[in-house]
């Protein structure tokens, strides 16, 4: 297995566990930013209203690094198409992965100097892995409350999404067995 650096160089494996810290302040790009409060009981209310997903169609997620776009399919039906932000300071790995766990919130920290970040209550985190990128490396799709610049690389390796979009994807995607995620660069595909 190739050695891949952690997505979050400081929090690394700590980020793999559920952590909720309300009334907290994060740091990103030298700026302070208020983290959203999270109430798990509100999520349980939503799932009661929406009901259980009984679809038997296979689910697929595609992330195109060239266009900074995520597409999610259920069978041949498009479930979602939305802009994302992949790695700017750290590279988002390419390949085929599976979601191995979903957690509602965690803290992520890493970088150094001007690109140091420390972000509590990162919402709707879906960790993915494959034989080359171990689960312990902490690469994920997740929500974003510190920037709103989707369609352009902004992260340290994870796939950032608008929080309202990732909330829907989080409810839809499976983690056992995990939904497949394909990350590619369409500009590398011969025409």
């Amino acid at each position, binding site marked *: 297995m190739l050695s891949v650096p952690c997505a979050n160089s400081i929090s690394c494996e700590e980020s793999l566990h559920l952590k909720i810290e309300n009334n907290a302040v994060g740091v990103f*790009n030298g700026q302070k930013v208020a983290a959203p409060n999270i109430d798990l009981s509100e999520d349980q209310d939503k799932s009661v209203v929406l009901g259980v997903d009984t679809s038997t169609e296979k689910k697929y997620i595609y992330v195109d690094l060239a266009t900074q776009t995520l597409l999610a399919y259920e069978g041949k039906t498009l479930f979602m198409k939305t*802009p994302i932000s992949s790695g*700017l300071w750290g590279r988002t790995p390419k390949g085929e992965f599976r979601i191995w766990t979903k957690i509602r919130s965690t803290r992520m920290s890493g970088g150094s100097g*001007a690109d140091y970040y420390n972000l509590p209550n990162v919402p709707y985190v879906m960790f993915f892995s494959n034989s080359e990128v171990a689960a312990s490396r902490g690469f994920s799709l997740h929500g974003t*409350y510190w920037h*709103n*610049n989707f369609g*352009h690389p*902004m992260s340290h390796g994870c796939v950032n999404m608008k929080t309202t979009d990732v909330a829907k994807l989080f409810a839809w995607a499976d983690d056992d067995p995990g939904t497949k995620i394909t990350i590619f660069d369409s500009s590398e595909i011969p025409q």
Partner: protein
Amino acid sequence: MIISKKNILVASLFISLLFLGGITMLQQRKTTVNTRVRAALSDSISPTPTIFIPGPLKVEQMDSPDGTATFTMESQSLETHVQYSFYHTDFSKNERKLLFSEDLSQSRLFSIPFNAWSPDNIYVFLNDTEVARDGYIVFSVTGELFADEVRYLDIDELFAAKVPNFTITEVTGWAAPDLLLVNTTENEKGTKVSFWFNVKTQSFIRLSNYFY
């Protein structure tokens, strides 16, 4: 000479016919005269007023990043201009508020980009497009005015005044709650350079990374 009743009747009938025929001829003559008079009138006399029908109301919306609010832009094409109205809806308060209205020339177009909202739901920026010019404006959804009681900031106007050797290529979104990402090219060498625009201080900060 004795004139019989029959002869009187025949004579009366004859006279009546002559009288009716005469009236008919006169009416025809009148009609003919009137027609000639109408035909002699000029075509330029037209009292019918022109009625302008306003264009349909167009509506664009963008939800805030956390989904707790939405920004709505309504536009309608009128006779000489386009009227825009901007609204903020707070779902937690079930409240829709008019932020402001603006009348623009028909050559100018506002549109809402995907990254319009600041991450803290305080500001919105819009694309402001004219022929041969892509511009951007930013304003607060709380109704708070900027310095000098200005409702919205014209980003490219401010940039041109403060950073004269560069040209904005695109304002892409928010790097932080107060910071818009502004991509530019240097006028002389064509180098790509990114700036932050601090909405609160109205200052531009040059960055070492280019945010492509």
